[in-house]
């Protein structure tokens, strides 16, 4: 093994969490076997773009998708405080087919609510990649557009669409729940027009997105694509 590769491996190991390292495990029947969590517990296959086929059917399906937006309950920044009021009698987002889901597997919309710290970006990427195609990203607040008031912060990203394919931006600091509802309506229009193909964009430009993500996440200790 050359020194170079050894160095890279050591560097990788430094960031690897204890539970993700290779180890020997003794099973309940006494047989010992090796576990490599990065290989065994995650899937690191590249995402595949699945383009819509029949236009008429796709229009109908897009209409259903637009009227049934399942939002992942994952708040990244201060903007998350604007989401709970949507479910109260005053705003009642259920009227528009917007429902909250607790798990990324079942959700179709990821709201990046406000500033995104690098540490949270890592979790946001993991959550986004666990969601199923088609999936949409709604960016809330000025911080996701150009960093907002955190534009020169040492640990906050400035422009979200370098890292995830954003469908709709809602500007403001903070945007009120009405603005968020307007953003949802914009997203619906986009989906119905067949222009919300973020998941396919992400798959097509996967290398570009990964390079951007790795540039800013220094302690990359997970597989490249971990759904």
């Amino acid at each position, binding site marked *: 093994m050359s020194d170079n590769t050894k160095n890279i491996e050591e560097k990788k190991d430094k960031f690897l969490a204890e539970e993700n390292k290779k180890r020997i495990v003794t099973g309940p029947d006494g047989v010992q076997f090796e576990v490599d969590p990065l290989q065994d517990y995650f899937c690191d296959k590249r995402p595949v773009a699945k383009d819509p086929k029949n236009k008429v059917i796709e229009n109908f399906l897009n209409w259903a998708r637009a009227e049934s937006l399942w939002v992942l309950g994952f708040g990244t920044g201060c903007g998350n405080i604007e989401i709970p009021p949507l479910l109260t009698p005053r705003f009642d987002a*259920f009227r528009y087919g917007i429902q909250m889901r607790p798990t990324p597997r079942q959700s179709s919309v990821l709201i990046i609510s406000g500033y995104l710290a690098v540490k949270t970006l890592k979790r946001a990427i993991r959550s986004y990649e666990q969601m199923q*195609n088609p999936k949409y990203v709604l960016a809330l607040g000025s911080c996701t557009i150009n960093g907002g008031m955190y534009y020169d912060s040492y640990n906050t990203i400035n422009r979200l669409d370098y890292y995830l394919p954003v469908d709709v931006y809602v500007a403001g600091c903070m945007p009120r729940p009405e603005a968020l509802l307007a953003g949802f309506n914009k997203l619906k229009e986009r989906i119905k027009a067949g222009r919300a193909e973020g998941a396919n964009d992400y798959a097509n430009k996967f290398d570009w997105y990964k390079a951007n993500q790795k540039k800013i996440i220094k302690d990359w200790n997970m597989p490249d694509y971990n759904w």
Partner: protein
Amino acid sequence: MNDIIVKLLWTLLGLFIVLNWGLLMGATMRKIVARVAHRYGIPFYQPWLDLIKLYSNRSSISHGVMFYLGPVFRLGGGLGIFLFLPLIYGSEHFSNFSWAGDLILILYFQFFGMLGMALGASDGGHPNSVIGITRGLGQFTTVEVPLTLAVISIALQYNTLSISEIVAAQQGGFQNWTLVTNPLATAAAMLSLLGLFREAPFNLVKAPNEVPIGPPTEYHSAFLGVLRTNGALLHVVEAALFMNLFFGGATHWVEFIVKTFLVYFWSVFVGVVSPRFRIEQSVTWFLKIPLAIGILAVILYI
């Protein structure tokens, strides 16, 4: 040969009606809950849209054979109950495949789906699924105890295990319903129904804001679509089972719809005014008053 095909077609028509009624009933109940909270709530057609969306997702991930089979088993349980349940009393077409011992078979099918789901969800590998399953099976086992006692009681009362005969014995007016002739068994069963339908206070297993929604944590796309289809089906067939056993069955579809709605509404009615039990609270709750009433109902008919 021809007869069985015709019967099958009628059964499929019944399935179509029951499924759509289940989706509509679910939406109506969610609207009622929303109105209690001073909201408008979802549009009544939301469950159909959700299903279309889930079935048409472009990607899905399997975690192994059992993960695949989990929703299939669950749907098998729901369809099993449906197939052996007479929907409309006296109707040649909508009695499905009801036969002499269907009551026992239906009780078995209720657990069958749960077990299949448990195997499938644990194959997903998510720790939250496993916690959800442990809670779900624990609660469901205790729900079954008073229900089974109530069923034994009415089996002794009518001296039969056929649902059709039990419904037949209740014809002729309100005063012949099991509700009047055997109020103890009805009470035990209606209390266990609260756990069967999993509305609050017994909705810990699948409540989104607890350990993320329990068993179906990892299920998505068409897998979740199958589970939701089964959920709609199960709500109607279980309400129909209670309707047949305790409330005189139904002689036409309007009666069927009104009675199943009211049976389901009972659990929603209790749900909207109740907080949520922890799992050990709900387990012990079923093993106290409902169990005592169930035992009393059996003792009276021995």
